[in-house]
């Protein structure tokens, strides 16, 4: 293992993220905390959340270098931590924590808690690797508890069987395809038929695991037949999307960095997103509604992942997180109400507002948060996804818009049918427990905070997207900024500071990573004098091109993976060549 000293904190945090819930799972499985298995579960997931946020913080404030450790097989390292991982790990931790806090007491016995924690640990491990064999194992390990739990639920045998059939197909295709890709890697020049076929097998596996048409039926079936926690844990993290990101990006034979398989998957995903949203309109029970909505939103993520522009990719990742958090909240509120009032039909108004007004409020807020309410992350996600889709293909943008419209109508219909209608005056009032209130409020606060202040997340996802696509970040054209004004008096000073990246505009050129200007994300004062000749400033990097590599200055950060947007020449290019190179490096479209 090529482990450097400054990687140790990151590896330690990663280990804590994975091992904390694993240790708690073992503890509970051996009979520990029999009375209240929820407590060790919550503690372990809080530890995992804290550790994963440490990784995120380290990634955002550090040199943002991909961590790759262990054996490289099939194009992926055993341990692979990059911007995608840094964002997804805390996301999964929050979802799992909310599930554990909201689960009804009668459901959360020792075995069930142990299954949830094992699934969480496996998901964390899966999001930290790009190794194909580890991915296959993780697919199997995450599918088994889901099947077991569904089968053990009264009335869940049908759903369990459907799930088993689909997952067997998915794992088989994944295994066959991965072996083919290892034998004949498609990311190396001169790929043969075996590697290409392997890629399509893996694409089929992703198709099935993500519930894309025509392999979509297991999605709503799982939500109907399994406990809500099982269904959410199995679908919200979207391990198939993660697998697609790791295995289909960065192929050398595709200049745009995206495998052809992903392009085909995205088209089917668009259809699934619209189809799922349309089906959600006519669902007759709340479980079916949540299941079809989840299917639709999940498909939107895959649709955006095939985007050639960082903006589309950014929209896909934002949708991944926003829809995951919102649907988790929606599903958990529905589960909380079901556990009190029984199954919830959407055929006639149920009148639940009178006996559960707080749950009604949370359901409405989570529902609106899933359909693009301004001030929530889904508004940002929808904006980016629609803009990026329409930029690339008109029909893609129209389908995305149709899916969002139909989803919104379904959510409102769901709210009116469950909570509207004549009240049952003789029924009990369903109070919200403190742990439920904390979980729901924290989940909602996360969605709103990311919606009101999306800049850090969007910035990090933009970087991650650029690195995945192998294209430099689009440099900002200062003349295009409506508020660009060169300060009077001339001289060399900071003319403008990029709001998100902290890039500084000096003498008409955008610079990044300047020691004098601080790290990305930190703003400096406008009109601050900058001396390009000083050793400190010589560590600056022109966006896409190095300016200098002075011996006294700290070296510019590089990725250990394939070079992203920093050239290897190290020499000072002339202004003409810099501008020519910049225009040629900008992605088409």
């Amino acid at each position, binding site marked *: 293992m090529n482990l450097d000293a400054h990687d140790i904190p990151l590896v330690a945090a990663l280990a804590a993220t994975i091992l904390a819930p694993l240790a708690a799972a073992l503890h509970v499985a051996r009979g520990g905390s029999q009375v209240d298995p929820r407590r060790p579960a919550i503690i372990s997931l809080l530890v995992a959340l804290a550790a994963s946020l440490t990784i995120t913080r380290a990634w955002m404030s550090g040199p943002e270098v991909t961590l790759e450790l262990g054996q490289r097989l099939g194009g992926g390292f055993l341990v692979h931590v990059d911007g995608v991982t840094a964002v997804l790990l805390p996301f999964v931790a929050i979802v799992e924590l909310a599930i554990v806090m909201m689960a009804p007491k009668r459901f959360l016995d020792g075995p069930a808690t142990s299954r949830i924690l094992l699934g969480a640990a496996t998901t964390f491990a899966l999001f930290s690797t790009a190794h194909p064999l580890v991915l296959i194992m993780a697919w199997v390990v995450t599918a088994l508890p889901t099947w077991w739990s569904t089968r053990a639920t009264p009335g869940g045998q049908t759903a369990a069987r459907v799930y088993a059939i689909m997952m067997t197909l998915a794992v088989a295709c994944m295994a066959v395809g991965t072996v083919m890709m290892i034998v004949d890697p498609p990311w190396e020049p001169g790929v043969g038929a075996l590697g290409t076929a392997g890629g399509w097998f893996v694409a089929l596996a992703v198709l099935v695991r993500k519930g894309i048409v025509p392999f979509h039926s297991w999605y709503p079936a799982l939500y109907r037949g399994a406990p809500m926690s099982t269904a959410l844990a199995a679908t919200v993290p979207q391990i198939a999307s993660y697998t697609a990101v790791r295995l289909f990006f960065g192929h050398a034979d595709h200049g745009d960095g995206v495998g052809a398989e992903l392009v085909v998957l995205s088209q089917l995903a668009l259809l699934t997103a619209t189809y799922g949203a349309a089906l959600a309109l006519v669902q*007759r029970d709340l479980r079916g509604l949540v299941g079809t909505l989840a299917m639709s939103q999940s498909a939107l993520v895959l649709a955006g992942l095939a985007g050639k522009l960082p903006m589309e990719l950014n929209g896909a990742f934002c949708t991944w997180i926003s829809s995951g958090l919102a649907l988790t909240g929606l599903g958990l509120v529905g589960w909380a109400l079901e556990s009190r009032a029984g199954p919830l039909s959407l055929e006639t108004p149920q009148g639940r507002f009178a006996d559960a007004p707080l749950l009604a409020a949370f359901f409405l807020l989570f529902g609106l948060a899933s359909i693009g309410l301004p001030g929530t992350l889904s508004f940002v996600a929808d904006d980016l996804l629609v803009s990026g889709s329409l930029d690339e293909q008109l029909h893609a943008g129209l389908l995305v818009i149709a899916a969002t419209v139909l989803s919104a109508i379904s959510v409102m219909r769901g709210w009116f049918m469950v909570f509207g209608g004549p009240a049952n005056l003789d029924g009990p009032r369903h109070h919200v427990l403190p742990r439920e209130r904390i979980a729901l409020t924290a989940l909602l606060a996360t969605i709103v905070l990311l919606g009101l202040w999306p800049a850090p997340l969007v910035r990090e996802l933009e970087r991650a997207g650029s690195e995945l696509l192998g294209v430099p970040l689009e440099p900002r054209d200062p003349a295009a900024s409506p508020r660009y004004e060169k300060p009077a008096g001339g001289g060399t000073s900071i003319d403008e500071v990029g709001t998100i990246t902290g890039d500084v505009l000096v003498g008409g050129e955008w610079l990044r990573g300047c020691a004098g200007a601080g790290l990305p994300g930190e703003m400096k004062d406008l009109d601050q004098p900058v001396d390009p000749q000083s050793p400190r400033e010589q560590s600056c990097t022109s966006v896409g091109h190095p300016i200098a590599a002075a011996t006294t200055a700290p070296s510019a950060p590089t990725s250990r993976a394939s070079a992203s947007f920093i050239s290897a020449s190290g020499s000072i290019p002339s202004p003409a060549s810099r501008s020519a190179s910049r225009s040629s490096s900008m992605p088409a479209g």
Partner: protein
Amino acid sequence: MTIPGAGRLVGLLAATFASAHNIVAALVVLQLAAPAASLVLVGLPALLDRPLSERATTRLVGSAFTVAFLAGLAMFAVLSARGFAPEQVHLGTWFSVGHHDATIDLVADGLSVPYVCFSTGLCALVNAFAGKYLHREPGFTRFFVLLSLFGTGMNLMVLAGSIDVLFAGWEFLGISSTMLIGFFHERTNALKAALRAFTTYRICDVGLLAAGVMIHRDVGSGDFERLFGGVWPHAECLVSPGTATLVSLLLVFAAMGKSGQVPFSNWLPRAMEGPTPSSAIFYGALSIHAGAYLLLRCEALLDAAWLARLALVAIGAGTAVHAALVGRVQTDLKSMLAYASMTQAGIIFVEIGIGLRVVALVHIVSHAILRSLQILRSPSALHDRHELEAALGGHPGAASWSVVNLLPEHVQRRLYRVALDRGFEELVVSRLVVGPVWRSLERLGQAELGWIEWLGTRPQDRARDLAERRAQGRSR
């Protein structure tokens, strides 16, 4: 907005007392902050299951709208002293990806300032009315939360200096409107009306969303400064005629939904299911004119798009005629007022289409004030009528003449039949569009369930079930 952006915002507010240049900016921000603050201060305790008292709620919300109204008046005074030169307020970049910048830009000019004055003033009056009208109503707090949300959205939309901000306000309007139509959620009719309204809003919002995307793609920013320059209502279009036409048509489509224009008008009469105060302010005054405001804001684009103007005139005229006819056969007062509002909204669309922008703005304000009064008085209509009869010493008599009387009798009978069926609008939409789509989706849903049932049953169980069904069939 980043934390430094938020810091700039605070600095901006603080600097207003030191610099006259920032007074308008501070007033604009105050107009947004006041209703938003009341939303949080009333909504958060309710979410924590500790709602404020009725008195505290009405005072808080009323104060917020009063502050916003006074800020609007002050803004009006400052701007009129400057000849209504537009003031742009840049609060920063919300988020940015590549060349896609979502900026928080606001504008105070001859259109937004008068509009925001009268809207906040109306909201404050309705707040006072509702405090008494909804006394001891179970959803009292919920109403004022939604009213605050509406006020926030309205001010955001009116003061928007970019299409992104306008869209955010637009969404808030739609959601608050929907929830208030379904306020009395125990009634099935209210639920249906609310869902119908939301569906119409959402379908038409596609136009605004698509217009925003087109603007970003063609101009690189959502700022209205990049779309049209100059002073309202004499702004000039800065984009190509093709872009202007496409964007204008999309904006017209979006406006049709909120303003209840044919064929998206059948939600409006049903919207009167909500409480009277919200009906007054939404469908008599503000929400119904949101579409017209959107068009007035983008009037420079309309000037460059004759096709959009033609569409506006046709749609507005058609809606006005339709609503005037149908309104005459209504048997309840609020429905009649709804159609009266629809008629005026249609006429306003025509005014905008033929270029009478200031006339349209004056029409909006005067209609809003009159209609709000009518709707607020409608629960007391019978009482008012009896007082009138008492004062006159007898029945005042019904108005017997109208322009319809000039038509031949057989034509009048046909028009009556058409009016009773609401112009067959609902028939066409329900039977030819919604119905077939709904039935197809239901069949698909049933097919999905059947497939899952088949796939989830073991072959031996399937064979056994089949054998049992056959045996039962034979025994019958």
